[in-house]
Every structure is written in C-alpha cells, then in structure tokens.
C-alpha cells in the first residue's frame, strides 16, 4: 500500500490538463462548470440518481464521473444517498411501468426547489424501448424534466456539459 500512497504523492493529478485532445476537453468543460457552480451555488449541489429502467449503460458513465479524470465532487456536485438530501434528480431509463411509482415517490420525497435531469436517449423518448407495453417511454411522462442529456449512453464529458447548462440556465 505504501507504494501506492507514495506514487499518489509524487504523480501529477490526473485531473490536471494534459496535451491530449480528450483531457483538454475535460479541462475546458471543468473550468466552465467550476465557474458556474461557484457563481450560482457556492459550490454545493446534491444529486440523487434514480434508475427508472435503464439498461445500466447510463449508470456506468455516471459512475465514471467520480473517477479521477472527471472528479465531479471538485465542482461541489455530490451524488447523495437519499432524495431527501438532493437538489437534483438524475433519472435514467425509459421509465418502466414497474418503476413508475418508485420514481414518483422519489420525486415527491425531494425537497423544493428541485430540478430533474433526464439522462440518455431512453429517458428522453424511450430510446430503443419506445412503444413497449412495459414502459412509459420518457421521464417527462412521469415527472417534470428540466434538462435532457442525450446519448446512448452520454459520455462523461456530455454529462459534465449538461450540468453546466443546468447550473447556468436553470438554477
């Protein structure tokens, strides 16, 4: 373990801008998000994720937001464990009918003011699952949506950009 800790101390943080196109894109998005979140939120926004029938692909990319490359928390955006602690609900999936009530109750349990971000093509219009007897077909069919982030799944940069848009224009 010592090795890893020492290595951690000596190495440059991964979140530092690096020459590759990818990392430059992150750095740019990161600056914009940091700026917006400082101005508007004093750097604190709590997000609660609800999977309303996703294939779990969107969850994988949401998870990636927490890795050292994207490090969502440095912007003051935190994923929290309960809707009672949340300002933003991040919803994925085509809203299966079996999840509808759970989603509505989670929404009801989130204190005002609150915002809903629908993530992925499924959450937008049901994606490939549109038209199924088992799906509502869009998050907006169940609860009001403030912002859509499209993609199947949207990659972490797209997610970060979405959050900038949310913080900038809605909050």
């Amino acid at each position, binding site marked *: *373990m010592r*090795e*890893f*800790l020492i290595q951690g101390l000596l190495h440059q943080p*991964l979140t530092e801008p690096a020459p590759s196109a*990818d990392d430059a894109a992150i750095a740019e998005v990161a600056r914009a998000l940091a700026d917006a979140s400082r101005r508007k939120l004093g750097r604190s926004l709590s997000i609660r*994720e*609800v*999977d*309303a*029938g*996703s*294939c*779990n*692909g*969107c*969850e*994988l*990319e*949401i*998870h*990636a937001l*927490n*890795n*050292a*490359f994207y490090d969502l928390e440095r912007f003051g955006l935190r*994923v929290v*464990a*309960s*809707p009672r602690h949340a300002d933003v609900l991040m919803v994925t*999936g*085509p809203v*299966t*009918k*079996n*999840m*509808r*009530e*759970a989603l509505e109750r*989670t929404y009801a349990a989130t204190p005002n003011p609150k915002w809903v971000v629908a993530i992925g093509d499924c959450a937008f219009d049901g*994606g*490939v*699952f549109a*038209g*199924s*007897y*088992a*799906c509502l077909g869009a998050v907006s069919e169940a609860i009001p949506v403030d912002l859509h982030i499209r993609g*199947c*799944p949207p*990659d972490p940069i797209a997610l970060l950009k979405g959050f900038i848009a949310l913080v900038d224009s809605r909050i």
Partner: protein
Amino acid sequence: MKSLRDAMSNGRHVEQSRPWPRCVVDHTSWLRAVREISKGHGDMLSLWSDGADVHMAILDHESLQIGIITIECPDGCYPSGAHMHPPALRFERAIRDIYGLEAEGSSDRRRWLDHGRWGVRRPGAGPRPCAAAGDPYDFLAAENAPLHQIPVGPVHAGVIEPGHFRFSANGEIVVRLEERLGYVHKGVERLMVAAPLERAARLAGRVSGDSTVAYALAFAHTVEAALAIDVPRRAILLRALMAELERIANHVGDIGAICNDASFSLMHTHCGILRERVLRTARTCFGHRLMMDRIVPGGVAADLTPEGERTLRALLSEAGKLIPLFMRLYGDTTSLQDRTVGAGFLRPELATQYGCGGFIGRASGRSFDARRAPGYAPYAEFSFPIGAGSEGDVDARVWVRFDEVRASLVLIEQMLERLPAGPLLTENAPASGETLEGAALVEGFRGDIFAWVRIGATGAVERCHLRDPSWLQWPLLEAAIEGNIVADFPLLNKSFNCSYSGHDL
C-alpha cells in the same frame, strides 16, 4: 444424459434448428429430463417460451453437447419441474407472466416480472387489459420474535439498479433474504417480435449495458447459425478482442467497487483510473466507450486502425504492469481481507445445481467457461487459463476476476498478433422464405449468456430469447447472504454483481 439422447432419437426433430438440435417431446420425457438434470447429469441452460410451446436448453455433462427439448402446450399448460429442480422456478413464473402458460404443479404461484402495473396481463399471448394499480406481493413471513424484517429498495442508496430485498434478520444476522425483481422489465422479448435484424441487434445490445458486447455477440451468433453465415476471420478476432476488453473493463471496475464497499477507497481510485483508460481505448479503437452496436450479425461495424492498435498495445502494457500491483495491494491489505475472506460463502453444490456461470461459479469450484466448451471461434486456437477457486467467498470471487483480467490481457495480445487483413462483414443473405432457428452460448464477463432466435420467412425476428447469467446467480445470492450480517450485504451483492436489467429484460 440418457433422457436427452432418447429425446433426440425418439422425439420429433425440428429441422431448422442450428447449431443444436431441437426436439419436441411428450410430458413424460420432459419430466425425465428435468429429473436427470436435478440429479446432476446436465445443466438447465434456460427455460423459455415462444408463446405456444415451452423450450428447455440442456447441457449434457457426459457428451458436453447441448440439446433443446420442447413441450407443446395446446391447453395452455405444461408440467412444472421446479419441485425437482428449483432453478426452473423463476423461469416458470416469468413464462406465466408473459405468455400465460401455466406450470402445472408449481408451488409458487406469485407473479414474478408482472407487478400488476402494465395495464395488461400476459402481454405475449393475447393481452388482457387489467387495472394497473399494482399487485400485492406475499413475501415469506418472519415468524416469531426475535426475527424482524428489513425492506430495502427498489430505489437503493447508491448509483445502482433497482430491485427489492426483504431481509429477515435476527439482530444483525441475516436469517433469510428474499428478492423481488422485475422493476426494470422493459418487454424486450415482445419488442423483438417482427423486428428487422438490425434493430433486434441493437435491442440485444441493450439488455444489459455492461455486457453489450457479449449480448451483441450472442445475438449475432444465433443469426449466423440460423442463416448459415460465415463471418470473416478479421471480424471474428475483432469481436473476441472487444469481448475481452469488455471483460477487463468490468472486472477492474468491479474489483475497485468491491473494495470501496469494504471502505478501501485507494483501490477503487486506481481501478477507476484503469477502467477509464480501457474505455477510452475502446473509443479510440472502435468509436464507442462501451463498444455498443459494434458487433452486428455477419461481422463487425468498426475496424481497428493502426492508431487504434498502438493505443491498445499501450493499454496492454500499462495494465500488464498495474494488475500485479493491484493484486499485491489487495492481497497485502489485511483490513480488507478481514472483510472479504469468509464472507458470502456460496456452497459448491449450489453453484453446480444452478449451473451458475462466470466468476461466481468458478470461485465455487464450477469450472465452466463457454469460450472453452461448447466453445466458439476464435478461442479454440488460444490456450488461456480460466480463473478457478473453491473457497466460494467474496475473496475467492475477487481473485478469480484478477486471474481473468490477466488471461484476457494475454488473449488480446495474441489476437493482435494473429489479426489478418480482410473484410469485416459478410452480408446477410436475402430472406430465404423459410423459418429458421439459431442458438448460442457466449461467455460475457458475468458468465454464459444463452441466446435463441427464430427468424421468420420475411427475414425479420419472429421470436428471440436472451437469458442473462444473472437468472441463475440471483437465487444464489439469497443463499450466500445467510448467516452474514446485514451491513455486509452491499459488499456481497457487489461481489456477485448480478444484472437487474439483464434479468428483468
């Protein structure tokens, strides 16, 4: 398995089934087959319906051959096998929910995927409208003090999929866990009906996003078997390469997440970085981080460029250095081992009985890997170790996954060496005017995915069945948690990492 051999020689053969034979059998032969499976002569790979008949895919232990038997259900029922072979139970319940076919004699008549929310009953066979208010569900009761029940879910505390867990606990100790799944049921089997192959492939790739490559491959194999399509060699190798990348990404991510659930975030951070590098490499190589829709019936939809190959080789060399370090870090951290060793023990008998695939089965002594047997191209030409263990605890499952990551790294290296130039796709033949069937078994990171398709005269899908490995793993989580403390559930659950979406379909 005698009953399977008999069925195959006496039953009515369905001509168009490839690559494995399918036979229509009677009531008695059906039950004989289940009995032999229950005695350990074979594995029940899957049990499903097409709306009219019920099918069972069986892996015969003796011959290592797969066969499919079919029972016709003109009266809307067939004999339940769950009393002899419990793994059949949830399949039978799901068949009833979707197609209304009754498993006669089943002891559990509760609905499984149907929560009474669809507004219809049996959507697969003449849907009947009904109220969508939700059905009550009878969980097994916790009888008498000091037992109490803890309901958890469907919405969980982390960024994970939804499902309900009902714990009966004695103080801190879990006496029983009962799962209720189906929350993310999307009706995929029905969406498949009449779907053109291209759309069907996209759907298959979204049954469980973390296994999108494996699902796309399984679906492609079924179509290629049914239509007798030869896939170009470059495509075969690229597919396998994607599948191994997917395996590495998932194993690495999950090992980190397991350690994180034991509050060891250092490992989580490092695994997260490596996983991200794998995903970026996947995007550079194939244009999508999860490699969705890159495998299509007939071949692949993305080529590996020289630049992609360089990136991939760089990843291999980096991961090759990191993985042994991770293994040391994991093995040397005693506070972590304190949580994982001995926790969530899955008895080998249960793994065998359920035909439990993947690292869960392999950590409990069931050394099955679909890449080896029944096997599919190109794996026969590579020698690679498959992870193995017998301890059956969280720790063993982690080690098996480490071993598999190492094996996959070597495999990719070898595949790159042998990658020939050449075409990427064999065009699908025009619709043949006949009904054709294909089946496949593909090893995803989680275990073997069974897929079956019937293609109609027009060339579109008539029926498709996709069985996630989780079907045979979820029930075992209920067994593995027994006697552990409630607070260890997240750790155990992560060490299984079953797919909700893959199961609920």
